[in-house]
């Protein structure tokens, strides 16, 4: 009889390539499980609420409304935007929210499923897939809201909108990879998970999320140094009928993301048993 063989041995006796292969196989094998868990989480989340999916967009709406009010009431003066300010803010905050969600995705998913990680042997890659599925579910709701805004403000996207999905996907992979690389540290020490929201909040003001890049001044310099600026600006441009401003940036982004995500997969797979040891 030909039986599957499992060998468990000291974690550092594998080669990088072997681990990577195992990781990809893990994703493939665990897709059904991830899907099932995502269904479980989403169902459970909405079964316990009246407003249901509304909660996916509610924080977004409130946040945008605050800025729209601040701007329209003249409390703050922002650089004029190419598109109507409400649409600008809504798209900006949505995209910004995506970055945060992606960075936290792996850590959150692992944390939420600690109880099964410490008891059951399954392909842990399922947890990343699980996070992604849940993320896309929420994303669909948010993109629906954006489409409503675009229609309301009669913004017609150009043909370049076709780039939106691949570039958004690239950004998602990039930030999930960053989050996955941070996960082992942030799981062992909660300093990281405390730091991330603060850093993100601070960074938001250095990125054209709720206001455009000023034409001059210190802030302009800071924003141009901030790589997040290019991501947010270009993604928003694509949605609102403008062109990509920084093709070179995106090109190098592809390479960096490919390298980072490969490393992230290996780190994830290698660190999981070691983390399991500390979780139980």
């Amino acid at each position, binding site marked *: 009889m030909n*039986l*599957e*063989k*499992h*060998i*468990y*041995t*000291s*974690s*550092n006796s*594998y*080669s*990088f390539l072997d681990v990577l292969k195992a990781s990809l196989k893990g994703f493939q094998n665990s897709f*059904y*499980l991830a899907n*099932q*868990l995502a*269904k*479980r*989480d989403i*169902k*459970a989340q909405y*079964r*316990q609420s009246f407003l249901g999916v509304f909660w996916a967009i509610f924080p977004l709406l409130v946040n945008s409304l605050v800025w729209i009010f601040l701007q329209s009431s003249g409390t703050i003066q922002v650089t004029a935007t190419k598109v109507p300010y409400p649409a600008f803010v809504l798209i900006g905050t949505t995209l910004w929210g995506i970055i945060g969600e992606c960075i936290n995705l792996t850590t959150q998913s692992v944390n939420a*499923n600690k*109880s*099964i*990680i*410490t*008891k*059951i*042997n*399954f392909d842990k890659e399922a947890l990343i897939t699980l996070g992604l599925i849940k993320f896309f579910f929420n994303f669909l709701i948010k993109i629906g809201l954006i489409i409503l805004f675009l229609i309301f403000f009669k913004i017609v996207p150009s043909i370049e909108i076709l780039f939106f999905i691949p570039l958004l996907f690239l950004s998602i992979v990039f930030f999930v990879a960053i989050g996955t690389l941070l996960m*082992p*540290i942030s799981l*062992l*020490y909660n300093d990281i998970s405390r730091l991330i929201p603060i850093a993100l909040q601070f960074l938001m003001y250095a990125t054209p999320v709720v206001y455009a890049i000023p034409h001059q001044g210190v802030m302009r310099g800071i924003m141009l140094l901030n790589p997040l600026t290019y991501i947010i600006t270009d993604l928003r441009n694509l949605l609102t009928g403008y062109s990509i401003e920084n093709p070179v940036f995106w090109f190098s982004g592809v390479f960096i993301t490919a390298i980072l995500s490969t490393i992230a997969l*290996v*780190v994830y797979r*290698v*660190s999981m*048993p*070691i*983390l*399991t*040891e*500390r979780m*139980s």
Partner: protein
Amino acid sequence: MGEVLIKVDGVSKKFAKDLKKSLIYGLSDVFSGIIGKKQDKSLRGDEFWAVKDISFEVRRGECLGLIGHNGAGKSTLLKILNGLISPDEGSVTMYGKIGALIELGAGFNPILTGRENIYNNAAIIGFNKQEIETKFEDIVAFAELEDFIDMPVQNYSSGMKVRLGFAIAAQMEPDVLIIDEVLAVGDLGFILKCFKQIDKLLPHTAVVFVSHSMPMISRVANQILLLARGETEYLGNEVGKGIDIYYNRFVDNESTVFLDDGILELKKVQLLNVKEYYKEVPVIKWGDDLIIFFKIIFKQSEELPLFRIIINDKEQKPVGIFQTNTLNSDLTIEDNQLNFYLLHEKIQLSKGFYSIDLSVFKFNSNNPIYRINNVLSFQVVHDEDVWPPFLLNASYFNVKS
């Protein structure tokens, strides 16, 4: 003999006692794991071996009973076997499909219905969609939850949850099965059902079974591994011997008086007819007469009481009670003292440790006046190793037709 399905070779695992250090070591392990640096295998500061140099093999159709005291390293070894954590030294090789009954109902969400949770849990323990769908009816039937399958699991009783969890796990057809003490819950009917299911799996599975319940171990295991402080204390096919070593650590000569009306005082209890002692515990041979001597001083009345004497096995489970004395018994109190012995001829208790509880009652009433537990322990020895509490004398005769 089936083929070897589990091969554990010199497995060791170290843990740090201090949390901060454990985290730092964890981080450095992750780092050296990624860059593939050879790690220093010796103990770093504050570390200890939770499991040290364990080796064994289990073939198809065999069951290894894994026993040991709390903190002996059973759970750690189990986690290594299950592939949850990797050993620091040595290797574990398993062949075929692995099933683990370590936690039942993992991944249940309390808000969702039993039906939905069957899909969740089954997916977690490794079923694919098709398998779940074909086995769904069996699962529900096994769990006996037909009427409640569309109710949220949070409204289930704990027994119902366990039943559902086991029913799902029982549908696995593994080559290697790892069982932790999950079967200790649920009502008797369900426990028996679980055992039946495990018995069905046993002949074509290699099983590692962890339990504190020696009756269960002796029932299923044909090999035993006794762990003590992470190391192998006994490994072999003599299940009874392993269990004895395990129990010997619990030998306890402390008796507890838990009722004393002040009417009498127990001065002395002693086993007569004893030729040797094991760690101060008297040893008698199977088939010898059991003679227990009592010396009691009466402080108040001189009314002859009734003695109820119970024999417990090592799990404190009563296995026998001696007939009580009657008014016709040859007992008399002289000078406030009662000296007597109890004789039980040709003891047929099987080998092992036993203890004796004494209760004293007033005649014609159910009022106990004195009660002492574990007043005396003794060991019965015999060549034959049997699990049931009695090894009964028997002769066999041919009936000619």
